[in-house]
């Protein structure tokens, strides 16, 4: 190797060795740097897997009553209370009719997660669509926002009762009692919780659409559809993310309130929210019965929140470069 070769080598521009990578790779790289998001994401994955396949690992029937083994405490209570009634057969204890808490958490989690996600996504898509349309197209603003006011002022309980009266029989006949009720509940929760998202997205769009980059995009003839997709939506992603996290929690809790009022799932159909609500009168004797489902809801919401944080950072080109 000669001296000249070395010189030339030093003078040479570094040729990009990697192929030009896509925007999504950048997004992923940025996302990976966000520890909270990674943890949140993996926890969410874990909890989702647990409720999906947990039933095949922990095979006790959640509805099986075993009155002799009622009020069993979780196994960990034995650490500080040697006299506590604990059994390895019921690691998280049983309720006042002897139903296994772990099995109920697994099955209940599946319903709660499904209700939470579907209702949240439904609410988010309605809310974002209406918000964007109202904010961007001035002619639609009035009618859509007055419609939002209307839905905001409808009392939810009579609305539900009407929905149950009108649709339950058909849905039960078509999809069976549980799936039918699921569709009904998800529908009602979704349809009654998009308004805040819509108003917030609209308010952001109102401010954004007067900004220079939008004016510029419009002046070079970008179609409204493209402006909304390429320029507006990425800029309203953070309030949408916040709405999503809050929406998930709201959906899970609303479902429990509905069961509480007797318009929700059939009573032999556990959900986290319902387990929590049922356990409240006994919370001083059996704190675990409120703690476990409460913790499950909180941790799920928390992990979605961190995931949302990470996604927002990853999707924001201003942050991504740094």
């Amino acid at each position: 190797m000669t001296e000249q070769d070395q010189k030339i080598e030093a003078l040479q521009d570094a040729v990009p060795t990697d192929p030009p990578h896509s925007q999504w790779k950048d997004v992923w790289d940025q996302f990976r740097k966000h520890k909270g998001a990674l943890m949140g994401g993996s926890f969410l994955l874990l909890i989702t897997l647990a409720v999906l396949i947990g039933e095949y690992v922990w095979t006790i029937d959640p509805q099986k009553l075993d009155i002799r083994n009622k009020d069993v405490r979780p196994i960990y209570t034995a650490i500080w209370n040697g006299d506590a009634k604990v059994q390895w057969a019921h690691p998280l204890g049983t309720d006042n009719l002897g139903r296994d808490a772990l099995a109920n958490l697994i099955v209940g989690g599946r319903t709660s997660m499904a209700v939470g996600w579907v209702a949240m996504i439904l609410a988010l898509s309605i809310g974002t669509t209406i918000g964007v349309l109202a904010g961007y197209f001035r002619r639609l603003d009035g009618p859509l926002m007055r419609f939002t006011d209307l839905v905001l002022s409808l009392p939810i309980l009579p609305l539900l009762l009407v929905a149950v009266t009108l649709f339950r029989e058909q849905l039960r006949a078509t999809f069976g009692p549980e799936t039918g009720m699921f569709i009904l509940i998800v529908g009602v929760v979704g349809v009654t919780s998009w308004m805040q998202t819509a108003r917030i997205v609209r308010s952001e769009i109102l401010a954004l659409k007067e900004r220079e980059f939008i004016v510029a995009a419009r002046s070079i003839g970008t179609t409204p559809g493209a402006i909304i997709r390429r320029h507006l939506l990425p800029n309203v992603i953070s309030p949408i993310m916040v709405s999503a996290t809050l929406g998930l929690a709201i959906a899970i809790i609303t479902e429990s309130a509905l069961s509480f009022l007797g318009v929700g799932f059939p009573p032999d159909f556990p959900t986290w929210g319902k387990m929590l609500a049922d356990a409240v009168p006994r919370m001083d004797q059996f704190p675990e019965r409120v703690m476990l489902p409460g913790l499950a809801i909180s941790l799920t919401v928390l992990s979605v929140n961190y995931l949302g944080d990470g996604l927002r950072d990853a999707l924001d080109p201003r942050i991504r470069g740094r």
Partner: protein
Amino acid sequence: MKIQSLLLGAVAATALAPAAFAERGSDGHVNIIYWQAPSILNPFLSGGTKDIESASLVIEPLGRYDPNGALVPFLAEEIPTVANGGVSEDLTSITWKLKSGLKWSDGSAVTSADVKFTAEYCMHPEGGCAQLAKFDGVESVEVVDDLTVKVMFNEPKPNPYGPFMGGQSPIIQAAQFADCLGAKAPECTDANFAPIGTGPFVVDEFKPNDVISMSANPNYRDPAKPAFATLTFKGGGDATAAGRAVLETGEFDYAWNLQLAPDVLAKMAEGGKGTPIAAFGSLVERLEMNMTDPSPDLDADTRSTVKAPHPFLSDINVRKALSMAIDRNLLVEVGYGQAGRPTCNLVPGPAVYASDNTDCLTQDIAGANKMLDDAGWAMGSDGVRAKDGVRLSILYQTSTNAVRQDFQALIKQWWSEIGVETELRNLNASVFFGGDPGSPDTYQKFYADVEMYANNFDGTDPQAYLSMYRCGNEPKPESQWQGENINRFCDPAYDKLIDELGRTSDLETRYKLAKQMNEMLTKESYTIIPLVDRGRVSAHSNTLGGVVLNTWDSELWNASDWHRVK
């Protein structure tokens, strides 16, 4: 000597009089909490228990039922009977005599005109009186003299104690309500919120659906009572919170109707501030069997009507097996504790009316299985019995309530052990117990195979209660789904007994008839499967004395005797 004793007597009288007067109001303040808040203090405009009981502190009837179900005079001198001549031999009239010297809380005298006015008020055709059934069959009310009033019936009444008896039909003041007859009744807000009465307390302030402030009635007939000068009647919240406020924090002195699971109540009682008390009435939690077909495939005019008999519940073997599979003792243990007793009777009390029907008290799953086998209901591969293509698959509905949902879970499990599949449904109580003919979810419409709720009867006589199960009295589309024969039960022999009971005044025969009818509905036909004789649990603080729990009348019936235990 004479003078001396006179003097002594005078001294004693003056010494005693202030003492007697000092008694009223000497114990300060008492707090009552009802987890259902009173909306109005006029029982004629609202049938709600909370309204009747809160009003019972202020307005009183001529007579009440005591904790044993016996009749005791309140405003009346005595309870009229055939024996004392108060009730005519032919049972078509009853004559009440008021105590003399009675005063309304505003100081004016109580007269028989007030009693007559009360009847006019409730019987006014446009008034929408909630207690109209109490005045059923009343032809006229006549004032005989200032203190005597005579009620005429249009037919012989074996039980003439409907009007003016019990917390549901108290006497209201004619002067106050004179302009409130008929359609004007709801406009008299001041009178409805603060009726002038004869009871131990008078209303100072009424906040609807929230709180009532009361103070001792200065004109109460017993100068020594009530012991409390003031009273707060708080409403709202839930049974748990009410129980906690009496038993654990001691903020309140009396909590009504603590429908709580026994372990929850026991834990609260450990708080040591108060004591739960229980008493039994006629309230029975039961399973009602639908004798007609509730299938959604039928059209609206046929579904759940007598035109379509139920595909499998019309078989008595199935109904009996469903009853045999239930362990009522366990239900009581889980749901009611000391406030419940397993029962096989629709009429569990008073004792004279209760049949000694105890066959159902022991669970017999093997026997139930055998009976179904014998009846041809063969076990299918999916664990559900079937016969001629009809599967024993039951839709079981009830109102939303923690104890009822526990019962549903338990009963579902037992039924699965005899090869019966159960789908559970719980419904909002205000829809389930409402009579909206447009809703598919009312208990009258009964679009389910089995439903569970509790019912009882007013007072101590079950005649009206047993008469509900008459052929043709069932809810049906033609009657806008109103009707009381929820099971769509129909037996001509039973109808004959109803008529006979309506004619009989001899008490022994009445007891016998009632028992026979009760058995026809329960152990002979299993149309109704009684589960639990539900008592009433209330709680009072350890410093509140004189409480006697009464399930046949208002719980606050003897509030004038309540006092502070020092």
